[in-house]
């Protein structure tokens, strides 16, 4: 089933036209990778999916993006509800400067939940899902900032999972991490995709090849090629895609 459907999306920052006629659709419970050289608009496009660009004054979007059949830029849409459904993990781990427990409980707290048992239960489940429970179960009250970078990133994933999103956006989630932490994150993505739809921006070709079913190649604000990952990497239709994945520019 199609979950995300972008139709002729154009994005501008002031006069800078950074996304040009992007149309693509993403199916439920798949991992989709966005690749392309820096500055080609991957992050911008990813952020249109949970409207995180709304805070940039010069940002302007034309076209339509539907999630679950609803236009997310429609007038009646509550961005807060959208973002509960479309969670996000950022490039640099950004846990709240609070305890590990509070980090994971935050989403429920802002939804107004004060059922302590439910919150504790959800915190535990989310940490388990993010493969972090074993490492932190005895230090839940310690500051999240005392964790390593890789642990912090898994905490950010747990925090997102705690509000039961259906889509998780990840913007180069492992680019600030060491290889072992990166491997753990990849493993995690592999497990999560049975239940969630994941869209991930990555600079790492091998990573895209390993974890995604579909890959979108962006270049200078255009969506050059979007296909099954195996097709993109073994049989690219466009010269630019081939040049990029073979490392001839980037």
């Amino acid at each position: 089933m199609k979950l995300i459907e972008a139709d002729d999306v154009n994005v501008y920052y002031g006069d800078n036209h950074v996304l040009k006629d992007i149309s693509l659709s993403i199916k439920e419970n798949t991992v989709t990778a966005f690749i392309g050289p820096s500055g080609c608009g991957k992050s911008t496009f990813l952020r249109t999916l949970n409207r995180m660009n709304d805070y940039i004054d010069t940002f302007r979007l034309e076209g339509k993006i539907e999630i679950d059949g609803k236009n997310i830029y429609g007038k009646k849409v509550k961005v807060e509800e959208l973002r509960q459904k479309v969670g996000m993990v950022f490039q640099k781990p950004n846990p709240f400067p609070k305890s590990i427990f509070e980090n994971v409980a935050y989403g429920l707290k802002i939804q107004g939940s004060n059922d302590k048992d439910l919150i504790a239960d959800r915190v535990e489940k989310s940490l388990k899902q993010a493969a972090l429970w074993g490492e932190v179960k005895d230090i839940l009250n310690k500051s999240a900032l005392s964790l390593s970078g890789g642990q912090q990133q898994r905490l950010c994933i747990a925090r997102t999972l705690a509000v039961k999103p259906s889509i998780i956006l990840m913007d180069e989630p492992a680019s600030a991490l060491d290889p072992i932490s990166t491997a753990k994150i990849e493993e995690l993505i592999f497990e999560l995709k049975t239940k969630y739809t994941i869209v991930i921006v990555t600079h790492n070709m091998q990573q895209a090849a390993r974890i995604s079913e579909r890959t979108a190649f962006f270049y200078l604000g255009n969506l050059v090629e979007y296909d099954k990952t195996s097709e993109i990497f073994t049989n690219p239709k466009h010269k630019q895609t081939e040049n990029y994945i073979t490392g001839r520019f980037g």
Partner: protein
Amino acid sequence: MNSLRTNRLLDTSFKYVGIFATLFGLVMLAIFIFNILGDGISRIDWDFLTSLPSRRSSKAGILTAWTGTAWIMMLTALIAIPLGISAGIYLQEYGKKNRLAAIVEVNISNLAGVPSIIYGLLGLEIFVRTLNMGSSLLAGACTLSLLILPVIIVATREALKAVPNSLREASYGMGATKWQTIWYQILPAASGGIITGVILALSRAVGETAPLIVIGALAYVPFVAQSPLDEFTVLPMQIFNWVSRPQKGFLENGAAAIIVLLAITFCMNGIAIYFRNRWQKKINW
């Protein structure tokens, strides 16, 4: 002579000028404190803190003055802190970033530099006369609140500005509203900076005399204020009153009161520095 050597020479000479300037300030301060301590420390005892003012210098105390200062501080804090922090939050987080906002911003910074006596005149006109508060504690606190509002607003904005954007994104990304993000994440992260600014502002208010003279605070108040509408005096006014008298006994009293006032301001600044250091450590995530 090549430019490298000129630069090095300039560098060294500037270093010495800097050291001299710093030492000059420190030495002057040390001499001043040493002098004051010599004159007044023997006068400070329980009686001095708990006696009403008197015509006889040996019986006079600073009870009305320090309770007046305490009242003024409390009332000023009650008025200025909520107003200043709210205004800072509004301007930084909600206000549109346009020409008007830029003008407001510049003017708030300018207001922080307006001579305090001007605030006294404003307070006299608005609070004492128009709003009929008389020369009361309330009028004094309102006037001093005006005086320190710009400082609190600027400090609040700076502290909010220093909160990294990644924290806002994290909160918005979880589906938090703007207010939830401000309340649960940004304010706690900025609290150290805000508290520092507030304490420094209050410690400035504690030392102010001119605006209070203008609104008609009295130098001689023979009773402890019971309500915000009572007349009052404060430590700096009591000091001013005593040191302008010829008798040696009153000069000693003045020095002793200065020590108390200095102790209060040093304590407040110390607390402010403590919060600033703790905050600076925390903000580096």
